[in-house]
């Protein structure tokens, strides 16, 4: 006799666990956090033998239901954008579920809501955020008010270009190359208007919002928990992003050097 197979996604338990893990990985959380959250939520839901294996591009979940049936699912995860508010919300829901403040259906409904939750700042407000970020770093690199203002404005323009790239669904490395290119190019144009600004403080300040700080942190955190695959993956992502930014900046510097040799600039 053939055993009837039940699609795993029909089960709200599996959907809740999958959704929680997927939101964490898609929005820039560490893989160990996704695994721990799934384990805590599974235990809170009365499941046994809860096992999960998360990597930055996928999620495997397995558990035994109270009636003894073993459920397993595999989910491919595509990294979206960085939104730490969503990761924090999943963490909060997991805590509330463990404390008995939410039941399964309430948790599932909230998790579905989190998927569509926008970030705390809109794409327009990201421009002043980039300005503050780059301005602050320019100050740290010894810049005065002119460098602070200049690098802030350049970072805001680079952010604007980044917003356009994401609207056209361009890949992150194209955005990183373009960001590096503009960050090196625009200060050279600004020098034509304000000749006395320090190029180093301006460019370095404007580059800082592009730095892959989150990937670097995740690489260290995952490696420390013994998850070498995810640690290496996040480390490679950080390195590739840095290489793309540097590549864009070098391309821009080479172009400027060529134009200067031709006495165009």
């Amino acid at each position: 006799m053939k055993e009837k197979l039940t699609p795993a996604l029909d089960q709200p338990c599996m959907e809740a666990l999958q959704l929680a893990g997927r939101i964490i990985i898609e929005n820039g959380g560490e893989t160990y956090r996704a695994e721990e959250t799934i384990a805590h939520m599974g235990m809170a839901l009365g499941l046994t033998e809860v096992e999960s294996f998360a990597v930055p591009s996928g999620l495997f979940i397995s558990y035994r239901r109270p009636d003894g049936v073993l459920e397993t699912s595999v989910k491919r995860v595509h990294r979206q954008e960085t939104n730490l508010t969503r990761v924090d919300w999943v963490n909060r829901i997991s805590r509330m579920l463990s404390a008995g403040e939410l039941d399964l259906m309430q948790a599932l409904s909230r998790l579905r809501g989190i998927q569509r939750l926008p970030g705390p700042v809109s794409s327009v407000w990201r421009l002043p955020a980039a300005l503050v970020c780059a301005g602050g770093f320019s100050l740290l690199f010894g810049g005065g008010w002119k460098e602070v203002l200049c690098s802030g404005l350049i970072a805001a323009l680079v952010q604007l270009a980044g917003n356009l790239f994401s609207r056209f669904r361009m890949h992150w490395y194209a955005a990183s190359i373009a960001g590096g290119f503009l960050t090196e190019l625009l200060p050279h144009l600004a020098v034509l208007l304000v000749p006395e600004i320090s190029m180093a403080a301006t460019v370095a300040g404007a580059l800082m919002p592009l730095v892959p700080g989150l990937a670097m942190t995740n690489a260290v955190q995952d490696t420390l928990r013994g998850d070498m695959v995810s640690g290496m993956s996040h480390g490679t992502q950080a390195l590739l992003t840095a290489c793309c930014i540097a590549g864009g900046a070098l391309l821009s510097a080479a172009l400027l050097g060529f134009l200067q040799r031709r006495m165009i600039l």
Partner: protein
Amino acid sequence: MNISFWQAALGSLGGSVGFALLAHAPLRSLLPGGCIAVLSFLIYWFLASLGISESLSVFAGSLAGALAGHLVSRRMKMISTIFLVSAIVPVVPGLGLYRTMSLLAQGLTAEGADQGIRAMITIAMISLGLGAGSFIDQRSHLHRNRKDPEPPGSRPA
């Protein structure tokens, strides 16, 4: 370090708050995250001003930032990533990376490689500080939650 105390404090606060906003960090984490960034950078700045090596200063700054980040994340019941990113971002060697690129673009390969290696050592020190902070936090958390084991046979059958 040729910047004043106020430049260091304001710069690290502004830089980290802006960075956290770009990563869509929750709004209630911005001020504590900014304070952790200021602490992390001021420790680095103070030690570097005393003439202590750049690597050791960066390690101390990121270690203090990581410990403070884990502590605050437990208190606020929020994910530690938000505070850890804020803690390390101000000590990232942005100027060193810029100089590396600038020298390489001018064809000064040896000088560029020298700057690049220095920047890489600083990044390695940040990772080490962050890792050490997380390790200390994990151990202390386990220690606090550990119950003394009962001797065998102490419970009646």
